[in-house]
């Protein structure tokens, strides 16, 4: 059964899209990540124009983050103050990102930038995660594990504009979360990702936030940043496909049910190394696409005239 996507202007198999949403849902259930970093490339592989893929992923992430944050909110795992500071940064970052996106699209470089960003980020994060999880697996085999410090103090803690974050038990410069929010906001606009895969490590390693509040706080601010991206993309580029977003979402909701059950049966380090391998796999596929000679050196951009 095919469905015609009104904004992407292509006809796709409903079950393929539902299946893809389902797979992303399983991943988000298993690993606790949004899965935007896999969604956008998969949509592009399916033939959805890159610009529509990025904008629609952002729209879909709004929904998955809302359902994710509710559970964390009930358990009190959201640092509201930290979330709001990150959000201010994220708001400016994503607005700048959409402007950059529009500009790059005009110069015909948007596909390249999307691909390159994916290769760089997925490659870095995948390698770091794999390294860390393999070490953790090896360490768990040896009983004499060293206790590591919660976080180290470095030059980052000497920055001005200090602020107290009670829930995170931190007294740090507001510039840090602002900067992180800003950078991740740009990524959201350019790559159609929630940015959890960058935000979470940054919160743990750069800010030194306790792990318990990291995911909830990150989800909280992702809702607003992706909503901002959705709105700006709808306004500037008209590339948000609601039909595609809803279809993906239905699959993702069902998939996440199974994902949570599978996740409960696997160990943390094994999960992380699996996720790392998957991230590296997508990274390699995208890197190969950049290097291999394309089927046609010429490509066409339409300047659609609207009725």
């Amino acid at each position, binding site marked *: 059964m095919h469905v015609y996507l*009104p*904004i992407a202007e292509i006809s796709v198999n409903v079950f393929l899209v539902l299946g893809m949403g389902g797979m992303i849902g399983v991943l988000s259930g298993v690993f606790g990540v949004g899965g935007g970093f896999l969604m956008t490339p998969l949509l592009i592989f399916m033939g959805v124009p890159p610009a529509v893929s990025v904008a629609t992923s952002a729209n879909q992430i*709004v929904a998955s983050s809302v359902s994710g944050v*509710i559970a964390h909110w009930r358990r009190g795992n959201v640092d509201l103050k930290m979330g709001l500071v990150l959000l201010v940064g994220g708001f400016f970052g994503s607005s700048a990102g959409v402007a950059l996106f529009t500009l790059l699209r005009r110069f*015909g470089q948007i596909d*390249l930038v999307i691909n390159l960003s994916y290769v760089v980020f997925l490659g870095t994060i995948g390698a770091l995660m794999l390294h860390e999880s393999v070490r953790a697996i090896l360490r768990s085999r040896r009983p004499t594990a060293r206790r590591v410090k919660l976080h180290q103090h470095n030059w980052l803690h000497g920055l001005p504009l200090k602020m107290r974050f009670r829930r995170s038990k931190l007294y740090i410069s507001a510039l840090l979360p602002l900067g992180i929010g800003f950078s991740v906001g740009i990524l959201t606009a350019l790559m159609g990702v929630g940015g959890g895969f960058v935000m979470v490590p940054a919160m743990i390693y750069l800010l030194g936030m306790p792990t318990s509040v990291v995911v909830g706080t990150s989800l909280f601010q992702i*809702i607003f940043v992706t909503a901002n991206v959705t709105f*700006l993309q709808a306004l500037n580029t008209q590339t948000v496909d609601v039909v595609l977003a*809803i279809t993906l979402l239905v699959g993702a909701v069902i998939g996440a049910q199974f994902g949570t059950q599978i996740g409960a049966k696997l160990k943390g380090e094994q999960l992380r190394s699996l996720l790392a391998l998957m991230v590296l796999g997508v990274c390699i596929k995208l890197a190969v696409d950049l290097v291999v000679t394309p089927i046609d050196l010429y*490509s066409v951009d339409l300047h659609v005239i609207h009725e």
Partner: protein
Amino acid sequence: MKQQAVSFLITACLVLAAFAAAAPTVHSQQDLVADLSDHEIAITTGFTGAELLLFGAIEGEGQIVVTVTGPRQSMTVRRKQRVAGIWINTASMRFQNVPSFYAVAATGSLDDIDPDVRARQEMGLDHLSLRPVLRDRDTPQDEIKSFREGLIRNQVRHGLYAAGTGHISVLSERLFRTRVSFPANVVTGIYTVSVYYIRNGSPVHAQTTPLRVSKIGVGAYVFRFAHTNSAAYGVFAIVIAVLAGWLAAAIFRKV
């Protein structure tokens, strides 16, 4: 085969009916009569492409050429080049009034037709009038040619330009018919279907029929909403996502 024979019969009947309707003028200069099986293609939610039948009759001997051109747009063709191992778009050329869709069908070879006529009526992919908007007046012809060919190759690959010349079947040197297929990614707007009746290499009769391709139903509504009221559409997309996410969380809680 049987199905084809039946549809041919139907075509014949339709054409005869057309003749009957035009009875008083049958003996006048009406050397060419043609019509489409449908004058509108509706892109619905389940749209996967469409196929139309063009049929008609001719009086006397000659060649028939049918061209179908979609709404004209401007297009930018980009060329990739390897820079530090990576393929990057480095050059581009803009073309104006490019047909968004093109198909041609003919009885016999298009090569028998006068090249000027072919160029004027855009008969065949190599005779499409694709005019570049040149920033540099000294752009070599070779360069224009390769961008032009790149454009055509891309359109053919996406099914928007039919590769080669389609077949027109003729029955007893009077009735003819041909099929035109449209892929799922067709552009909406008014298409032009032209039928030429050619004798000794130049057209003696021509008939043009418009064809409308439009979106209908939910898809059309969403598209119009997104393009005419972008800000409200953005808000709508966010509200839908928030509600869907909240609903999903509610269901999860019950389970």
